[in-house]
């Protein structure tokens, strides 16, 4: 097997490099998480943080860390991860960098449901997630229902998604204008995608969804790189294309919708995470996990910038929006030049 060593040696080297890079990315995320705990109006030492987190009472630090910084950091990590995974799976599966829960109107659908929930039903945080999942899945059905039957996913779907998004946004605007003004601040803050006022009690469902669904996405996603070769090639290699697509869509829509219900739509994270992960690693292979970590880094870093870089505190969604919008324009420009639009 001497030849085997030579022909597969570069592959092995590349795999090793990717593993090291993944560890580096993980390290970066952990650094951001720790930094979010340490840094703020008051800078705490690791000793104080450790003591507070393990349940000892440290005057000042306990409140700041457990009530303010920890929920904020965890929410940022979990939501960023969920958006990143969802975006990457959508983009890869639909063969289109524009295809992600934001552009397809799935996030708007979920937002719309949550706004309705807050304004009319005064629902609890958990029911908000249920509303969001329902609206997210309904949007997917509206988008894919007609085309799944034809066994192909239509590129025009992106246009339908943009249409749906406009519709949902109109509904949201209408509701925010006509509704009870006392409820408005909460709605607006949430709509911008914000980690302000996050509490630990809001997080269990999101944590559960991320922890349980990520392995399922990874298992189903083993055939994700085969789907890139076209539906028929994937099928000839033994991929159950329909089942894989429906399964992955359902799982990632749930992840994105639950994350949206907790933090609000944090603009462009699901759009940016996949391409950034691909740039970091390679354009091929399966980078679902990396995209999740990139998503988490984006949200954590953007939130730190939003909180401390300016004299005024900006919600995280404003910062990711500022990063994402130019990228969207650039992507449209590139696709237009290649004749893909």
């Amino acid at each position, binding site marked *: *097997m001497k*030849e*085997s060593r030579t*022909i*597969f040696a*570069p*592959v092995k080297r590349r795999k090793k490099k990717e593993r090291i890079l993944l560890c580096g990315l993980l390290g970066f995320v952990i650094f951001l998480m720790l930094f979010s705990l340490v840094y703020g109006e008051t800078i705490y030492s690791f000793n104080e943080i450790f003591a507070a987190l393990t349940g000892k009472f440290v005057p000042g630090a306990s409140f700041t860390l457990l009530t303010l910084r920890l929920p904020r950091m965890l929410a940022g990590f979990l939501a960023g991860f969920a958006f990143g995974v969802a975006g990457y799976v959508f983009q890869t599966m639909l*063969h289109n960098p524009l295809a992600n829960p934001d552009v397809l109107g799935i996030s708007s659908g979920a937002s719309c449901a949550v706004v309705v929930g807050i304004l009319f039903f005064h629902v609890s945080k958990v029911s908000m997630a249920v509303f969001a999942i329902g609206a997210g899945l309904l949007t997917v059905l509206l988008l894919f229902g007609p085309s799944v039957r*034809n066994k192909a996913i239509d590129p025009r779907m992106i246009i339908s998604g943009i249409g749906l998004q406009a519709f949902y946004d109109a509904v949201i605007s209408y509701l925010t204008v006509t509704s009870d003004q006392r409820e408005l601040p909460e709605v607006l803050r949430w709509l911008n995608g914000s980690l302000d006022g996050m509490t630990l009690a809001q997080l269990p469902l999101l944590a559960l969804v991320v922890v349980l669904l990520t392995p399922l996405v990874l*298992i189903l996603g*083993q*055939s994700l*790189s*085969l789907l*890139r*070769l*076209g539906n*028929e*090639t994937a*099928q*000839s*290699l*033994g*991929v*159950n294309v329909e089942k894989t697509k429906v399964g992955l869509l359902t799982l990632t829509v749930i992840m994105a919708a639950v994350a949206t219900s907790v933090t609000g739509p944090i603009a462009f994270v699901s759009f940016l995470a996949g391409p950034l992960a691909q740039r970091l690693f*390679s*354009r*091929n*292979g399966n980078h679902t996990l990396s995209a999740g970590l990139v998503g988490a880094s984006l949200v954590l870093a953007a939130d730190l910038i939003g909180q401390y870089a300016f004299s005024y505190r900006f919600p995280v969604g404003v910062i990711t929006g500022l990063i994402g919008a130019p990228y969207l324009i650039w992507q449209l420009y590139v696709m237009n030049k290649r004749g893909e639009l």
Partner: protein
Amino acid sequence: MEKYQLKCERISAAYADEEILHEVSLEIPAHQISVLLGANGCGKSTLLRVLAGFLNSQQGQVTLAGKKLQEYSPKEVARLLAVLPQQRQTPVGTRVIDLVSQGRFPYHTLFGGMSQADKQAVEEAMDMVGVTELAEKDIGDLSGGQKQRVWIALALAQQTEIIFLDEPTTFLDLSYQIEILDLLADLNQRLGKTIVMVLHDINLAARYADQIFAMKQGRIIQSGSPQEVIQVDLIKEVFDLSSVIVQDPVTNSPVVVPIGSRDAKNKRN
């Protein structure tokens, strides 16, 4: 060789309510090269897709080794027959070895990576089509003929008895067309692979096929060896073309020489 017998009985298939195939029955001869021949829109690609299990027939059934195709799991089918579709995508930046390695997917379990057997199969496949040297190359940088070889290596890595190819020579220069068909003939002879392909070039079909299935309007109207099938009447019926059949000086296979309306006029003068 009952084991890998592929046949279909009275299958009908439709796209969007339009019936494309009408009660087609055929048996693919094992260890031979079969060619589905016919004019554009006659249903030959559809038939290939039904035989490969990509498209479910509305009536009738496809059986592989005595069992209905639908009763196999997708991975089981992928270990018995490989398909090279005409429409496929090569993601930018894909390396040859990474693409060919995907051919082992049907053998992978939930958590297993590439085993030694997988690596050996990939290596053999690449060696057989002569792309070992290109292992680290980006597929986008290869010539049309090389690309086609790489895709054939992908199918070979699946280590199936049967290989389907939909128009494997389209968009290739003539020299590459011959190169690819020679390669397939060689795989058929050396390894006994059963090869089924759709070709639109009658003369190439006659040259390489053991068995030709001539199709018209969703039906098989004639089947047999090239000598049996390639006749003036049949060419008239299938392609609506007047012709003279001569013998290929290189391979002795029949060659269709078309008579166009212009030629007919000139002849009269």
